[in-house]
């Protein structure tokens, strides 16, 4: 039996209890509202793009070249392919560099140098993309004396590198040290520990970072304006100007024709689908055999 004799009852002053319940209720509702706004914004954007763009999508739009002004129809096939090529080449440059740098920062801690690189990467993510475009312009376009797909890829790569680096470093940081030690204690050399233990364990998060970087680059318009420039025809030559989806959207959306506006919405829809598809595909490819 309890020997407490404080006389305190389990029933506190009813008023206090009611107030607390009310505060609790209000706080919960406020937080839910915040969460709802985040989701609603996304749903509204996606919904409106689908509403305006999906209706215009047909086989021709996806497989044909743009038609001259005044002619109905035409498509953005060259821009879809151009976007994929430019972003693909950019990823080929940015992913090895970003992941390599992340491995250096995380697996070979070097104090000042590591902190400096990470700090600069954080700053680089904040550099406006139009500045990155100007930089690519002066580095690649100006010496070549004409716009080109490769200059667009360089601009995209500059945008992707810090994203890949930061997400990859976070991914590697989450790999428990006990696993590295387990491998090292088995007499596994450090490079094989990294390649065959650390990277497989973090592969999902690494890939998520890459997809994030690709998705971010796919939608960047500003750096394309004076690098890839755009092209109404098929072009697979990286040294020549190339069409990309953001350029098409920008050009059509700012143009004077209703037909162009409709195509801009449709191209936006395609862009959203491509990003969505890329992230779903990479995630399903990576699904390891051990996942439930």
């Amino acid at each position, binding site marked *: 039996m309890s020997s407490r004799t404080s006389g305190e009852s389990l029933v506190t002053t009813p008023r206090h209890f009611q107030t607390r319940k009310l505060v609790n209720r209000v706080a919960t509702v406020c937080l839910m509202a915040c969460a709802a706004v985040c989701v609603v914004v996304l749903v509204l954007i996606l919904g409106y793009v689908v509403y305006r763009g999906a209706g215009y999508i047909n086989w021709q739009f996806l497989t044909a070249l743009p038609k001259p002004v005044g002619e109905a129809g035409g498509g953005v096939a060259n821009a879809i392919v151009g976007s994929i090529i430019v972003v693909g080449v950019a990823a080929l440059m940015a992913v090895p560099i970003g992941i390599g740098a992340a491995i250096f920062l995380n697996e070979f801690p070097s104090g000042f140098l590591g902190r400096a690189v990470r700090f600069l990467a954080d700053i680089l993510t904040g550099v406006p993309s139009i500045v990155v475009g100007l930089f690519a312009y002066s580095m690649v376009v100006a010496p070549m004396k004409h716009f080109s797909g490769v200059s667009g890829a360089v601009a995209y790569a500059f945008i992707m590198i810090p994203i890949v680096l930061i997400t990859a470093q976070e991914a590697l940081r989450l790999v428990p040290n006990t696993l590295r030690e387990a491998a090292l204690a*088995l007499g596994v050399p450090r490079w094989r520990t990294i390649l065959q233990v650390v990277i497989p364990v973090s592969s999902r998060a690494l890939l998520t970072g890459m997809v994030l970087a690709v998705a971010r680059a796919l939608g960047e318009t500003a750096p394309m304006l004076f690098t890839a420039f755009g092209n109404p025809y098929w072009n697979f030559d990286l040294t020549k100007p190339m069409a990309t989806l953001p350029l098409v959207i920008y050009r059509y959306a700012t143009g004077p024709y209703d037909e162009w506006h409709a195509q801009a919405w449709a191209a936006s829809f395609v862009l959203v689908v491509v990003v969505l598809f890329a992230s779903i595909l990479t995630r399903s490819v990576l699904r390891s055999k051990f996942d439930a």
Partner: protein
Amino acid sequence: MIDMRSKPQPRGSGVTPSGTATPEGSFPAAGQAEAPLRDLSLTIRDVTAYYGKFRAIKSISLDVEERKVTALIGPSGCGKSTLLRCMNRMHEETPGGRMTGHVSLHGEDIHAAGVDPVVVRRRIGMVFQKPNPFPTMSVLDNVAAGIRLNRFWVSSAEVKDRVEKALGQAALWDEVKDKLNQPGTALSGGQQQRLCIARALAVEPEVILMDEPCSALDPIATLKIEDLMRELTNNYTIVIVTHNMQQAARVSDKTAFLMMDEDRAGFLVEYGETKQLFTNPKEKRTEDYITGRFG
């Protein structure tokens, strides 16, 4: 140059690995344990280890006998694990970790210039406090990891043989032989720890260092690992860090008792036969600790 790759001759062959010129003779004797050199696996002389500026252990010397279980006991923070990690150069993997003094395996200084820490760790394996199977690998791949990751190519038949042997030695084969392709992390905690022991055994080391291998396990799993340790002394030398004095008394042949001084640096208080240390300690401080008066 000392070649860490060649395994020493087995005992009884008449050739002691210390037959070659070694710096062994120049070290001060450990005081106790004046066993003939060929029965010594690890000799630790005057080891002082640091984390950055913090001195974790100071001037510890002891001899680890071949095919025996040596237990390191002492209160938390007295440097048992640090000393253990100095024995296979894992200490230097900790940021800021460095040490002075000598650790020798069969008379060969494991810190000598030209000695690859990777090769040292293949001969002196380690089992950690928490079971840490590689989460992306199956049971089979976990055990095979040390074999595969050390070489560019191993035939799958050889891998299978060595995995079966290692799992057998770790008393795990019967429990997992139908689960070889399941993830290592799907096993129970005790099975995972025996998997980690099998993983260490598969590399065929001479010495196995165990850092509180049972502290995350239930009593039944603990018992299995303790039985296993006794079993393994037929072929291996074992050094175990444990918080559990009953465990040290049950499994070890020799026990070292460590304490820390006022600067929180660990030092060796007493080292001797387990039976003697627990029943008739030479030092008052050892007696106080094992009778539960502090720590």
